[in-house]
């Protein structure tokens, strides 16, 4: 758990972060969102003390960070940054092994862990482990960046616009990847982004920041339904709010399920349980379907969903 109590950061006379209070519960993903210069990165960097705070108190699992050795504090927090920050003179494997090596793990344990992480992040050991970062694509490099952050199994993950420099498709893939990994590992995560869609997709709770203050701290659904100010309302977008709400829910939430899943007819088209309602509606409008079968991950037909129900209850 991370607690920020009345935390202020000044640069000279300028106040970058102004008396903020924020609690990130264990296992939740807190996304700090706002335009550039709003203090979101500063807030993140104060948590691992890359920037010391001017006033207030920062507690990690109940301990004041100023009382801890900063290196010790950071070794227990994964850190992912926008440009990946991978060391260009180290191979992928060595980059991932950085923190375990700093912690002086035995050789075999490090090798085993590197292998585990490459697998977790869908990177092939044989092709990628001995490459250098410059030989990777942007998406692969950032996967390695995430693997490096997870290497020593820290409780906390700090991510500073990690996918900001990637193209839209790669970014979406990595977001889905992150959701998958997070559902397995449940790290306490603080994630900084300026992209509200990314925030809505990944967050357990979103903290909207502006001019060094937290304007609203709430779940994605509440941020969309009850924006606390005009600023938040503009940030989330007034017009497509309905569609954005739909993207927060999955087909599974609104489908009508028969008691038993059954094998589909061969060649049948349909949706997956994990598809968002927004995607479902889009497909149904495009194909002019009024109802569609839904399949689970194993390919079994687990229910049907109707267009009317999505329109009535989706947003």
């Amino acid at each position, binding site marked *: 758990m991370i607690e920020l109590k009345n935390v202020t950061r000044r640069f000279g006379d300028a106040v970058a972060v102004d008396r903020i209070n924020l609690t990130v519960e264990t296992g939740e993903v807190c996304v700090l969102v706002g335009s550039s210069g709003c203090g979101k990165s500063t807030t993140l960097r104060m948590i691992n003390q890359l920037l010391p705070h001017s006033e207030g108190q920062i507690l990690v699992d109940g301990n004041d960070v100023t009382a801890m050795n900063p290196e010790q504090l*950071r070794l227990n927090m994964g850190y992912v940054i926008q440009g990946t920050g991978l060391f260009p003179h180290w191979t992928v494997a060595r980059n991932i092994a950085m923190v375990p090596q700093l912690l002086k793990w035995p050789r075999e344990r490090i090798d085993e862990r590197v292998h585990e992480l490459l697998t977790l992040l869908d990177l092939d050991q044989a092709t990628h482990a001995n490459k250098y970062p410059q030989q990777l694509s942007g998406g692969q490099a950032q996967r390695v960046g995430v693997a490096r952050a997870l290497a020593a199994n820290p409780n906390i993950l700090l991510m500073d616009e990690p996918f900001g420099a990637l193209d839209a498709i790669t970014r979406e893939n990595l977001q889905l990847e992150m959701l998958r990994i997070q559902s397995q590992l449940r790290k306490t995560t603080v994630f900084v982004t300026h992209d509200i869609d990314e925030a809505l997709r990944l967050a357990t709770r979103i903290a909207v920041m502006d001019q060094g203050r937290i304007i609203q701290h709430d779940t994605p659904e509440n941020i969309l339904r009850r924006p606390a100010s005009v600023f938040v309302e503009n940030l989330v977008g007034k017009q497509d709010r309905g569609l954005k709400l739909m993207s927060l829910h999955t087909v599974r939430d609104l489908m009508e399920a028969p008691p038993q899943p059954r094998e589909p007819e061969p060649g049948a088209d349909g949706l997956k349980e994990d598809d968002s309602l927004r995607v479902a509606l889009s497909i149904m409008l495009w194909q002019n379907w009024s109802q569609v079968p839904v399949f689970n991950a194993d390919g079994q037909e687990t229910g049907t969903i109707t267009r009317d129900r999505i329109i009535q209850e989706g947003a």
Partner: protein
Amino acid sequence: MSIYSSVASNTMPNRVLPVLGCLALALVWLLDLGVIQPNRIVPGTGHGLISAVGGPWAGLVSLVLAGCVLLSFLPLRRRYLPLLGLVGLSLALLPLLLEVFAGRHLPEDAPYARSSIGAGFWCLLFLLSLMLIEILGRLGSGRGLQLMILAVIVGSWLWILRGGGLESLSLVREFNARPDKFEQALWTHLALAFGAVGISAGLAFLLALKMIRSVAWRRPILGAVSFLQTIPSLAVFGLLIAPLSALAAAFPALQAMGIRGIGWAPALLALVAYSLLPMVRNTFVALTEVPESLADAGRGMGMNERQLFFKLKLPLALPVIVEGVRITTIQAIGLTAVAALIGAGGFGSFIFQGLGQAAMDLVLLGALPTIALALLADALLTMLAASLKPTPATA
């Protein structure tokens, strides 16, 4: 090198080799290949190609050069390999021309007579070397092949020299008159140049660290080392005589160490002063140019400043630092020759002696090894820097 080694360019007609080949052909015919001197001081009589080595040898030389020109015109994919063989073999056997020349022209009853190398021979050597470099570039050859060819050529020269046919060559005579002094000069030269580079490398490292730690020191340090570089080298050697003499007179302990107004002490000091600028600049730039995002990532992962320096900054900076060492070493080897003026010894002493006695071959005996040392240091340090570059080029 990579742009030269692309496959497409290999079948294109080469423009460099014909020019070099034709130039060599013209110069070897126009200029004197060798000179016969009745004794060490008197100017000798020059001999052109035909007169120097006779018809068959002159024909062979012309044939080889013309062959190189023709081969380089052919649009063959594999023509660079035979070219490499031809030019490499010519270079390796080049001293044989001098042997033939001495055998034909040296009067047997004149013990003081000597042969020396003429402008035509130097041009031939120089142009053939350029052709070899061009061919190696086109072949995109690795370091191993280049070193092997160099070893073969140098080995062949030494073998011809051992044979004794070049005894009359005045360069060889100058060497044979003072083999001990030559060896001593070699060690003095190496000790002075590398001692200076070593000391200034250490000093420059500390200065660069100081500049990185405190911004206030940057301008003064860079200003000071730049200023040192602007003083003419002769002036530094001269300027140091007085203070060092005074120091030595005041402290007998220093005198016992061999520190005097002239000799190795002022030479070493001046060389160190000169070496500082490239070293400090390269070290400082290399260490500060490590991207801040990498340092940030390292710090964020829990590295302390010491680990950041040794695991990140130093390895990334090392190739550039070695580059500074390379520049400095070449410069120091050259400057050490000048330091002979204040009695520091080294190959420079032959140069100044030769100038004083109007004996050009003694000058060459000092100059040629200095050049060879500089080239060797350059090659070795370039290789070191390349091997330190930790990452392959971007795929």
